[in-house]
């Protein structure tokens, strides 16, 4: 049986999710036994236009990106979006709260016209996506799980319960009890409450659950006397791109 051809691509992002792949260690060699990586620019010189599975990182922010992702979609039988930038727009979405001219000028001044930019969009705001691996960065065990599903041709359902569920199972003390706000109650789990386990709060990198308990969340904020503005602004760190219109 011939190996499945897999290609990795990146758009606007920090490439940290590809790095997570390199961080698998020797497990990577076992995976390479099952698939053939035909393109992975960060670590390989080879390039290919013949692949079955495209694993795509990063958001769509320029006309050139748009052309590339359309082409990738037309070749790939299966498209996996991985990392927050690809799945929900991620931190790149914060740009969308400004006028594009304004933000370009703030960084490049009068030379801003050299660097045309469009509002940030997640991959599925541009082309259909078959599998999602959320997170900033991705949680490696989940990537392996999604790859296994994709290679077997069966669907993967992203967990749609709040981070709090896993956080409780991990027996963390709720950070609200310690006077600090956290996006765990409205954020999609699947990360094993990674940040709270390490003493920090949830920043919402996996996107919102499909049906957040708005009223209960308001009650929590009232109980701990935390203003809604704080939390809304915090949500924008990862979740702003979803309002982006066709550029």
């Amino acid at each position, binding site marked *: 049986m011939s190996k499945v051809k897999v290609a990795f691509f990146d758009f606007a992002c920090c490439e*940290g999710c590809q790095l997570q792949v390199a*961080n698998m260690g020797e497990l990577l060699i076992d995976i*390479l036994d099952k698939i053939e990586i035909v393109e992975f620019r960060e670590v390989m010189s080879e*390039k290919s236009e013949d692949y079955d599975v495209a694993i795509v990182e990063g958001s769509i922010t320029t006309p050139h990106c748009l052309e590339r992702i359309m082409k990738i979609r037309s070749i790939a039988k299966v498209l996996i979006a991985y990392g927050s930038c690809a799945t929900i727009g991620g931190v790149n979405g914060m740009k969308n709260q400004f006028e594009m001219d304004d933000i370009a000028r703030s*960084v490049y001044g009068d030379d801003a016209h050299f660097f045309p930019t469009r509002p940030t969009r997640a991959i599925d705001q541009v082309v259909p996506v078959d599998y999602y691996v959320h997170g900033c960065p991705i949680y490696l065990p989940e990537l392996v799980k999604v790859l296994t599903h994709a290679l077997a041709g069966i669907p993967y359902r992203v967990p749609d319960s709040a981070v709090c569920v896993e956080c409780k199972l991990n027996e963390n003390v709720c950070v609200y009890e310690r*006077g600090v706000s956290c996006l765990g109650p409205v954020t999609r789990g699947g990360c094993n409450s*990674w940040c709270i386990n390490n*003493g*920090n709060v949830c920043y919402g990198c996996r996107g919102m659950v499909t049906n957040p308990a708005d009223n209960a969340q308001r009650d929590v904020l009232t109980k701990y006397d935390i203003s809604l503005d704080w939390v809304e602004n915090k949500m924008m760190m990862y979740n702003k791109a979803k309002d982006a219109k066709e550029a």
Partner: protein
Amino acid sequence: MGRNINVNVEYLTRVEGHGNIVVNVRESQLEECRLDIVEAPRFFEGMLRNRSIFEAQHITSRICGICSCGHTLASIQAAEDAIGFTPSPQTQKLRRLLMHLETLDSHLLHIYLLVAPDLLGVKSFVPLINTHNDVVRRALRMKKTCNDICEVLVGRHVHPISSIVGGFTKLPSEKELDKMLGMLRSLEVDMKPTIDLAATFVFPEFERDTEFVALVSDTDEYPFLEGDIGTTDGPPIPKDAYKSVTNEFIVSHSSAKHCKNKRGSYMVGALARFNLNYDKLVPNAKDIASAIGLHPVSKNPYLNTAAQLIECIHCIEDSIRIIEDCKEEGVDQSEAILVGLNETGCIPVQAGHGVGAVEVPRGILFHAYDVSEEGKIITANCVIPTGQNLANIELDMKKLVPEILDRTDEEITLSLEMLVRAYDPCISCSAHFLNVEFKNR
């Protein structure tokens, strides 16, 4: 008749981010020699405006996956400088450990997976799985070990969790110190064959006189997190005056800004640090530098990779020293803090301007913030090592191409790719990077 060469490498591989190399030689005269940075700009400095200073670390670590700990530490330093917060000695010690781990992780990735394939004559590490299986396994093992140590210290290496303004949200237990120590010892063991392998590498011979810039300090530490801006061209400059060194300017072929100081360009990174701070390396690192023929001041940019190897030796040894020190003195767990958006006001905030200057794997990184009374960012500026190196890389290419005109297109392209790769450019950071374009011959 003179020679015409057109190099056009689109999307240079085995570098972080997107860049193109464009070289155009007509009648043996170099007409054009550029490194185009075609990374989609991400406008971090613009996005930071009006966000809490306590979010800056989380956001800016996302500038780059490879350098996320370095951005974290530069951001924290700038924020703490702006609001007038002084970290505890324990925090400073653990931050140094974190920086060492990132330096190790990044240098090992570069030496083994990005540079070694060129020197072993293959296109990537994948064919090496068959021909040099033990080498590939060792590389992946060492890289994973660096990550595993980071996981213990800060939750993960890519976008660290527990290192924040004010200190750490979680501190290592005694058991965790032992675990990290064990892993560092295993790195030390794997470092020996790494040195043996590196000793077999033959780096291209090429030299160009340039200015080297790196942090310098008056302590005994090989400086990564403290000190002033040192240069081989004059006295040190305080970090607050970083703009007088970087002098950023915009060129149309690069979404990353270029920099220059006293000359047309300067170089930052492992080789610059080695050249300026050689005396402060651990003795073992100095011995091995001599053994592989690396001496300060080295002017061959290809040897940046060799300087990275030397820094790996230093970082492992110093990390072990830090952990042994922590074991002896004990870690004060009461210093663990939860800050969030500073809802509880546990960190006093005042308006101010702050600068962070940190030696990250690719060179000196600056973050500078203006902060309002409420702790919101008014303006932010990040000056990235790769951006600082771009002008220097182009001047190297301009000197190199005429010296190798007698070679084939393929050989010229490879030499140029290897040159750019030697700088270990991080294009995500600088906007992101690399691809050689030969136009018609």
